[in-house]
């Protein structure tokens, strides 16, 4: 039977009749009833709990809200028809609520102030993040320098494992992606350049763009998405689980144990993948040239030989370790920033991907300017 609370004003003093199931299933309705009743009765009102058939903690808390703690404590002594077990429950609920008041919510702030404070917070955070990143890079370099001359401390096994994960396992996707981009670039070249009767320069276009820019840039962006996020999530969930603290209390250095192997692995893997990417991109271009421009493979290669100097390859390659270092640093640092919750792991993983892609592209643009001015 559903719970009920009824004020019977015909008798004197008035009687508040509480009956039925006071359980969670009827909570919403009972709550409305009790809210309507509030203020309609006073200390004189007799309270009748005899017809209550069952009660749980939700119902008990409603009764405490309705009647007030004092009344309930009296009732638990006087309402003899209520089974002892139910009275004990009422008493428990009332006793634990006695020292515990329900929190009041702070009122919402003005939206303009909120907006300004958000903007201010974001700017400040950007500044802090940059400082932190610089500090972290310094820390990595310091750890690296310290360990460089102590071969005993080199952690070869985790490093090789990381190289497999981020290098070898990423090779197929990197090759496939750059192959297709190479083909697309060649198509574009073929379409635009053919109008000037300069279709043959498609070869140069593909080779230039992949050796100098696309090879390394595409690989770096791919690894920023694939590896920076993995680093953040790995280190972040260790942080959330207090594993990082455990490492520290064991007298070990998380920089040594976690960061250095990852940074070194990426430093080795990214240049290798970049080389693969360059080759795959040029191959993609070559396939398009052969198929749609009628340039034979032999001719493609001899054009490469004659037109493209080795410095273009070097210009591309020299960027790879810088990108690798920054991606690894951002990934690991964001991992260390994780605090407790699963949500925070997700937040920082996103942030590490966004940051590392941003840094890679900005750095690439700066490098492009530099190399152009130098005439390399």
């Amino acid at each position: 039977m559903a719970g009920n609370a009824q004020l019977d004003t015909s008798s004197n003093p008035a009687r508040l009749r509480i009956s039925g199931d006071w359980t969670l299933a009827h909570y919403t309705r009972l709550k409305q009833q009790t809210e309507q009743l509030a203020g309609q009765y006073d200390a004189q009102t007799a309270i009748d709990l005899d017809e209550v058939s069952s009660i749980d903690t939700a119902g008990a808390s409603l009764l405490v809200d309705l009647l007030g703690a004092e009344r309930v404590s009296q009732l638990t002594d006087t309402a003899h028809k209520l089974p002892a077990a139910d009275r004990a429950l009422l008493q428990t609920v009332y006793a634990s609520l006695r020292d515990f008041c329900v929190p009041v919510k702070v009122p919402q702030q003005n939206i303009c102030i909120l907006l300004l404070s958000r903007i201010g917070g974001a700017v400040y955070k950007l500044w802090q993040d940059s400082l932190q990143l610089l500090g972290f890079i310094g820390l990595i370099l310091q750890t690296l320098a310290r360990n460089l001359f102590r071969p005993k401390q080199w952690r070869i096994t985790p490093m090789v494992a990381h190289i497999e994960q981020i290098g070898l396992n990423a090779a197929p996707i990197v090759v496939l992606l750059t192959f297709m981009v190479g083909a697309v670039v060649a198509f574009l070249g073929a379409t635009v350049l053919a109008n000037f009767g300069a279709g043959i320069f498609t070869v140069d276009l593909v080779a230039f763009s992949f050796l100098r820019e696309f090879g390394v840039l595409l690989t770096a962006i791919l690894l920023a998405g694939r590896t920076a996020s993995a680093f953040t999530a790995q280190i972040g969930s260790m942080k959330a689980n207090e594993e990082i603290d455990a490492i520290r209390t064991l007298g070990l250095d998380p920089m040594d144990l976690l960061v250095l192997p990852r940074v070194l692995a990426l430093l080795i893997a990214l240049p290798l993948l970049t080389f693969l990417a360059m080759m795959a991109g040029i191959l993609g271009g070559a396939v398009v040239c052969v198929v749609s421009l009628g340039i034979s493979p032999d001719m493609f290669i001899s054009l490469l030989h004659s037109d493209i100097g080795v410095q273009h390859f070097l210009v591309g390659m020299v960027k790879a370790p810088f990108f690798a270092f920054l991606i690894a640093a951002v990934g690991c640092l964001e991992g260390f920033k994780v605090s407790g919750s699963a949500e925070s792991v997700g937040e920082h993983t996103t942030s590490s991907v966004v940051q590392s892609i941003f840094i890679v592209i900005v750095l690439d643009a700066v490098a492009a300017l530099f190399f152009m001015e130098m005439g390399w």
Partner: protein
Amino acid sequence: MQAPREAIIEVRGLCNRFGSQAVHENLDLDVYKGEILGVVGGSGTGKSVLLRSIVGLRRPTEGQVRVFGQDLLSLPEEARSKIERRFGVLFQSGALFSSLTVTENIALPLIEHAGLSRPDAEHLACVKLALAGLPLSAADKYPSMLSGGMIKRAALARALALDPDILFLDEPTAGLDPIGAAAFDQLILTLRDAMGLSVFLVTHDLDTLYTITDRVAVLSQKRVLVAAPIKQVEDYDDPWIHEYFHGPRGRAAYEAATKIKEQ
């Protein structure tokens, strides 16, 4: 004991294996309506695995688990969820949702299943917090900001959120101070008496075993060695059980419990 009682959990011929390691072999166990069943056993004897098998989180390698007369794992999603709402589970490590505050953790099932509005649910969540013995200051904290004992209490409050019919508690008093643990024992008793709960209580706490359990099931040698009221279990002829109940801690707990009962 009384006439045959209604078993709400029946475990029959349960086998659980992880690779080549057999944790349970041919395990039988009943949990009756309205009883508090203590489950004991050495570390790694498979108490938590048994609990996971019963609540349907783990498909047993062999055997059957029936809850309210039904096999959870063979039920359609809808019916299963309906039964699961009658469970309250406290995991050994708390398993609070780390991205919700304590209040939100407890309010979540109330909003999702009991259909309460958010303010109502949060109000009720505060009541459960108070019942579990947490201070108000913990209400708006995230689980990572809580102490170990507070996590246990918050997890208990969440397990109690829907006023369940069966409570599964995995070492609820581990990490609580003795006063808190005693209050916890009383709370479980009160709830059981008022709402007719059944409680599946995994514990190493001898005081809890002596004060509140109706029966104790001993997990050993991959099965339930004995499940009986604690007085009978004590006298069971098995070296491990003897060591367990008649060791220095067992004796002390026994004497303490008799003292409490005399008062």
